[in-house]
């Protein structure tokens, strides 16, 4: 992964209530109790996040944890009370309205939980909307919209109005619209939460397919941990406006930073998260039944290892880093570990 930072937020706060700004100036690092006494609500508290180019960064938490507010701070839909947000090296919060509009027109896209389609426009016109407001000529913007509509698999429904589509189809339009300007940074705010479980699964697959083609930098909000570990390169867990831990899914499960994260990850199907590398132990014998890649999850190799007579080699970058045994795999599968 290319490790260049595209978006970074430093010590971002968002407080709701009277005189939030003055309060924060006087009390630079307030505790939760301080906020309560001042009659303020801390929607985002001291958030520090770095987003790397090309990664899928998932912000996850229960409702009311501040994840939606944080992502709105990152896109400056909501004005943070304090902090800095650097996008490609420039502080978003210092930008004028005009510069901000320019950035949104060319570099950002966003998908919304309730789809947020314009009811008076057709599928094609909705997808073309961001280009329309930039003043792109009609023929050109409709051609581009046609491309993205086809990309999300809605060919043949260009002339439909949003109310004539199912929820899943509506969200496809939302995705098409957000991709129309070819954004560098793609925000998805609980895009699949309003959909039925089966459709949700299908849309996740669709999303993975799109990302494999497009390689965007993605900030993805969800309250569904299974969704998070399916999609994420890294996950930030939020509670009461504060970020509890930022880590890879596997790390989150194996080394939770707080009790809250531990509680959260307890009931996760660990076979989906834990990789062979995490179970690798020093080689103990001579006979091996085969080789597995270090980054394979137990879910994918479990059957083979468990059915074989001997341990497997764990291989990383062509080198054997250890062995994985039947009992280690079974421990994970039955939840002992």
């Amino acid at each position: 992964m290319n490790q260049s930072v595209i978006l970074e937020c430093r010590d971002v706060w968002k407080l709701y209530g009277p005189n939030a700004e003055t309060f924060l100036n006087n009390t630079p690092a307030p505790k939760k109790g301080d906020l309560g006494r001042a009659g303020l609500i801390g929607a985002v508290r001291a958030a520090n996040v770095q987003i790397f180019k090309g990664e899928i960064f998932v912000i996850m938490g229960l409702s009311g944890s501040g994840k939606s507010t944080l992502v709105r701070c990152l896109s400056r839909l909501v004005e943070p009370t304090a902090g800095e947000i650097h996008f490609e090296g420039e502080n978003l919060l210092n930008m004028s309205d005009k510069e901000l509009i320019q950035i949104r027109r060319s570099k950002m896209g966003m998908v919304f939980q309730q789809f947020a389609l314009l009811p008076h426009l057709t599928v094609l016109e909705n997808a073309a909307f961001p280009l329309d407001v930039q003043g792109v000529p009609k023929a050109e913007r409709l051609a581009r919209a046609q491309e993205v509509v086809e990309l999300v698999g809605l060919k043949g429904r260009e002339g439909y109005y949003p109310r004539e589509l199912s929820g899943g189809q509506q969200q496809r339009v939302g995705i098409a619209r957000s991709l129309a300007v070819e954004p560098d940074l793609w925000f998805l705010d609980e895009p699949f939460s309003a959909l039925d479980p089966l459709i949700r699964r299908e849309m996740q697959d669709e999303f993975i397919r799109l990302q494999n083609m497009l390689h965007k930098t993605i900030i993805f909000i969800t309250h569904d941990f299974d969704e998070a570990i399916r999609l994420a390169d890294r996950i930030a867990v939020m509670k009461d406006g504060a970020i509890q831990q930022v880590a890879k899914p596997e790390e989150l499960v194996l080394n939770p930073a707080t009790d809250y994260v531990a509680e959260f990850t307890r009931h996760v199907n660990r076979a989906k998260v834990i990789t062979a590398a995490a179970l690798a132990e020093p080689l103990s014998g001579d006979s091996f039944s085969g080789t597995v890649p270090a980054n394979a999850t137990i879910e994918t190799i479990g059957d083979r290892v468990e059915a074989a007579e001997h341990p497997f080699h764990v291989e990383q970058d062509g080198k054997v880093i250890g062995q994985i045994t039947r009992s280690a795999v079974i421990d994970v599968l039955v939840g002992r570990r």
Partner: protein
Amino acid sequence: MGRWLTSGRVFWLGLFAVTWLLSQYSFQLYKALDARWIIRYPKKWQLPLEDSISAFLNWLVETANFYFFTFRELTRAIAALLEAPYQFLRNLLIEGFTTGYGDSAVQLAPSLGWVAVVVCAIAIGHYARNWALAALVGACFLYLAIFGQWHSAMITLASVLIAVPIGAVGGLFLGIAAYRVPWFNRLLQPVLDLMQTVPVFAYLVPILILFGFGPVAALVATVVYAMPPMVRITILSLRSVPEEIQEAGRMAGCTRRQIMWKVLVPSATPSLMVGVNQVIMLSLNMVIIASMIGAGGLGFDVLASLRRLDIGAGIEAGLAIVVMAIALDRASQAFAERSQRSLPDGNLLQRHPWSSTVLLVILANLVLGHFIPALQTYPDAMTLTTGPFWSDAMEWINVNFFDTFEAVKVVVLQGLLLPVKKFFSGIPWAWGIIATGLISWRIGGWKLGVMAALMMAFIAASGLWGKAMVTIYLCGVSVLIATVIGIPLGIWAAEKPAAGRVILGLMDTLQTLPSFVYLIPVVMLFRVGDFSAMIAVVLYALAPAVRYAAHGLRDVPEQMIEAGVMSGCTKRQLLWRVKLPLATPQLLLGLNQTIMLAISMLVITALVGTRDLGQEVYIALTKANAGQGIVAGLSVAFIAIVADRIVNALAEGQRRRLGL
């Protein structure tokens, strides 16, 4: 006994007992104490408001000068601005275009023939929905031609066509401004509140003084009357556009202007169209009323025949108003519900089939009308008149049922109206102020109490206490009767879907009728007086009581009803113990609306000779006394506002108790 006598009950019983005693014995009290101020507000304490307002308006018209132009020039400019398009429409629909004056006038082009107008109406109906609506609208306009109401109807239509765009667009922009600028919104809200409660006659007076007698003054009054609901609906519908849609617009890189015109307004269009429908119906209502200050048209015909007691002509013109109201209402509602359709392909003619047909018909009508006058103006020989029929019918009813009607009238008057009137009129003004304050305080807290007391004190200080009490009594009795009839109807409509469709459909139609129309049959049957006024008010104010009751009962969550059924409730228990308690907030909202409509109608019933605040306003109108009109109008508004706040506080309390 002890449990029954809660502090709340003690308060209400005590308050009523004191009021009743004071009302009953105020005259004796005045005699015993030799204190005339008890029953009559002393003249020397009266505020000289009437005179100062009149003087101010006089100054405004005669001497006010804004440096570059005088106030009179300003009103003249506004008048000219309205006059031009209005005259154009009149020429188009009625008089035809001419050049020159008097005998030397040369006709350039005739007006639109009646055939062309009817085809236009049909085209609009079909464009808005389907052939059924086209047939309805077409039939309505045909009716106007066949029954000889064409000329007056076109005058009314011209006024409505001018007032509606101004009211709708003006309301939209004011609403947008209020949505964007918080302080403007704070400024606007109380004005809107007042505009909705001040009776229409009250602002006819100053407008009459500023703009003079004639169609322009009527147009101004109409716009002023019809705009506030559009402002409110605009603010409301902009606010109810989902937050996410706005955010989507911002993330797409919209400027503020683009957010408003490309995101918010189009998303809110369906609800905005409901506002436009309201503007149309209110304009029609007002154009009719404004015939008193020279709008002419159908309203004038009704008024004139009411004065002549020409029953047949009155009913005919009234029916024409009804027909027009139905046509305008259905067509504009259809527009509001119309879903976007993609344009068909083809050349200009094929893409706009209706526009081209209508254009063709107009041209053909123009040419043919030259040779066949019957196509231009509906021939008099072919008009039907139902006037004699109505006159005969009324006469027959009056001959055969006079005694019955008279008996009903006497019973209701003696049994209900007069005792209540005596009770309210007897309350000494000072206690009236205190009692209103106490009631409001008990229900809505001390702020509401102080406000209510101050408003009642204003009425007393204006020397209008007696008339205000008559207003309250008439309004109270009418609302009581409307509720007693309306809520059972609403319950029936909610319980039996088939009956519901009929009842609610009827109520919808009743509500679209201009308030003026209600006076006609009432006066025909019961002549003038309190009883007639009450019947008209009840008819006019019935609809919200029925609607909200039906709505409230239907809105009771299914689970609650199922819980009731599973607990073994009978149908009756289900209604009384589950549905009605849960529907109370809605019932109270209905009551609120009923009161508001009753008050606004009461002022109009001044035409049939009630001695209340409405009469005061009406007298002011005929004397063109702006001060008197405004003070009386404000008094009516204050009564309405106090009633509105009290009932709203009740509804709010009930909602909180039910946890809704």
